[in-house]
């Protein structure tokens, strides 16, 4: 068995320099479209291309609803004037910054136990959560641990749109976590239902079902974005300000489009 010990040592350290420094390796993040000032003609073409309703043109500005963006790349590929694209991965946003911080940050002094619940995820977000344990991200070094039992958990991490069959199990997990607790919703599906909503099996967002503290957009958000969310919970990183509440479209409006 000594071959494994030697192999492990010979591999050396692979771990990312984040959060100390910025991670710049290619392919760590798919990036996100960037809203802002666009000529009206270009903006209206982009809005039309976006079948999920993530783009809208408001007050002469192109607004991106990051809760709805599903990385279909239709606003950047196959258009005459593509949208600007931002790299980066610090996407996690706090839904109720002041209150939640006051209440919880001191309670979880840096070490977090996380329970992961999949409520209908396509597998990509879940796989990205799984990557957090691999040597590249190695979240143990930051004091983050995945736990199988809700009684030990501080953080409930939810991936996927809320399917009907998973409502009861999710409720039970949430109730079993002792107070104080945080809820992180990961991925566009968890934030808005993504392409699967509205329907008779996914008719409610996670945030309508449970109080969500931190939201991570992206489909799937890369491991670093999920790591950023955990760092936000632990009070080690400030949240990003990607999502503006006012542009978030409700189901009905999307349905009409």
């Amino acid at each position, binding site marked *: 068995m000594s071959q494994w010990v030697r192999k492990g040592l010979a*591999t050396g350290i692979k771990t990312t320099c984040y959060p100390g420094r910025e991670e710049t390796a290619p392919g760590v993040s*798919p990036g996100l479209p960037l809203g802002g000032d666009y000529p009206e003609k270009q903006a209206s073409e982009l809005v039309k291309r976006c079948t999920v309703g993530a783009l809208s043109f408001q007050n002469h500005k192109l607004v991106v609803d990051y809760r709805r963006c599903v990385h279909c790349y239709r606003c950047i590929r196959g258009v005459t004037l593509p949208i600007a694209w931002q790299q980066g991965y610090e996407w996690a946003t706090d839904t109720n910054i002041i209150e939640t911080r006051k209440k919880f940050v001191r309670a979880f002094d840096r070490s977090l136990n996380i329970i992961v619940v999949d409520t209908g995820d396509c597998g990509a977000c879940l796989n990205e959560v799984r990557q957090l344990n691999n040597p590249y991200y190695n979240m143990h070094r930051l004091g983050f641990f995945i736990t199988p039992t809700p009684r030990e958990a501080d953080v409930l991490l939810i991936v996927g749109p809320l399917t009907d069959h998973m409502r009861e199990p999710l409720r039970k997990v949430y109730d079993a976590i002792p107070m104080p607790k945080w809820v992180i919703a990961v991925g566009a599906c968890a934030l808005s239902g993504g392409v699967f909503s509205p*329907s008779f099996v996914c008719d409610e967002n996670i945030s309508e079902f449970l109080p969500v503290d931190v939201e991570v957009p992206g489909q799937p958000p890369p491991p670093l974005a999920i790591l950023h969310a955990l760092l936000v919970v632990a009070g080690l990183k400030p949240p990003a300000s990607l999502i503006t509440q006012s542009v978030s479209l409700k189901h009905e409006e999307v349905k009409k489009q």
Partner: protein
Amino acid sequence: MTLDNIQEIAIRHWPDIKPRLDLSHSLCEMECELEDIPDVCKWLSLEMHYVFAGLIVEEGSSDWELRYVFYSDHEPGWIYILTHQPLSDPAFPSISGFLHAADWHEREAEDLFGLYFAGHPRLGDFVLHNERWQEKLRPMLHSFDGKKSVEHRMPDLEWKPNLIVKAPGAFGMTIGPKFSGVTEPVHFLLETVGEDVIRTIPRLFYKYRAIEKIAERLTTESTLLLAERFAATTAFAHSLAFVQSIENICGIKVPERAQVLRVLLAELERLRHHVGAVQEICESTALAVATSQAAIMEEELLRLSGWFTGHRYLFGLAVPGGLNKEFDDSVCHEAVQQAKAILKRFDRLEEMLRVSSSFLDRLEEVGIVNQLEAMKHGLVGPVARASGITRDLRKVQPYSGYEAYTFEVPCEQEGDGYARLRVLFEEARQSVKIMEQATASLPGGPVFSEVRIKPGSALGWVEAPRGAAFHWLRIGEDGRVSRYRLITPSFVNWHGFHVAAENFAFQDFPIILATFDLSVAENDR
């Protein structure tokens, strides 16, 4: 035997059959009388050795149309057995008595459409769990509005699982839907006598998102998003199957460069998936260094995909008529070089695993599926190939120009966990071999040709990393989707999972599950 021979024999046996031969698509449709269906299916599968791909149910304006899809194991050739029945009389003979692979197809059709299959021993409570949904709710009917929420029934607090094992000390152990660390929701009922598990009953569809229902009335563009995202660890394979069904309907010839690039991307995805599957197997045996080594490679392949295509899971690439993105030749060469370098280390990992006796002890003779059981359940993909079924759609029903590549389909006979692991390693090697051939002969030209959506219906198929996947699409007169049927490898392999999980020691359960390489998202749809 060619399709016209088969058609001749069929007409000799059953003079009522109305055949329609379409040799340009290697396709033969046979319209049968309702009472002939079991005999025709039996003859086709047991005597002609055609493989059952799936059952497609469509609700027409005045009648039900049931389409039993079969394909040949040796040569390009598809046979659809068709039958019609008025909407008012949804009763059909069951074929799962002799063709066990049709079992779950019939249960699904019963649960979602309200069809009745005479002779099927176990109908009801399948996709829609009985404790949540009202009886007689048939969401796949056109009259059901899939966007509106429905009223649920009150939970039955008295409900207890029905246990079959009766022995002193026997009890049922339930696992899930939320269990262990980072897992997909699925429920297992293990019937045990102490440490020994006698049988395992998986209960699925916790992630049922009604993809087939919400695709109805959508444009093909929006449906493509669904096809890509319902099982995103194999997103490219499924989006490819979907766009191929559109291309088959519209009779589009995809530019050669796009075809080669599609092969390149599909094999990159297969490589990444197999590395991830090996990582899970190592993790299930708690071999920490090997787990880390495989995880490093998986992350590197994800980063390679991200750098190469913009997205770590290859989203937003396949579109009807080609690809959405142009790739430089030099970038393709660079990607393949990187994949080759990773494969070299993957090979080294296999060498090391093969001499780790503690690891092999956990895998060998664990979760055995013999060839007969694998055939009976119609298993697909690496799982079937580990049980002696050398079947691969890339070889038997080539698409996207796979006939031009030289590669081997690995096959093992033992059908245990170790055989499945070896198949994964060998397939990863073959994938890189195909990627090399693809970049060596990269033709020039465009990667996209314009598609005008036409009404019609067709099947698209791919050999996804987990096995054969079929996407049936019907486009209505208005250019929108009127029926989208997904037959996925995990749906088939979950059906056969209980064979591997019988009479074993409880500590082997995670290993059997990991070597079976199942996706709940792909099954639940």
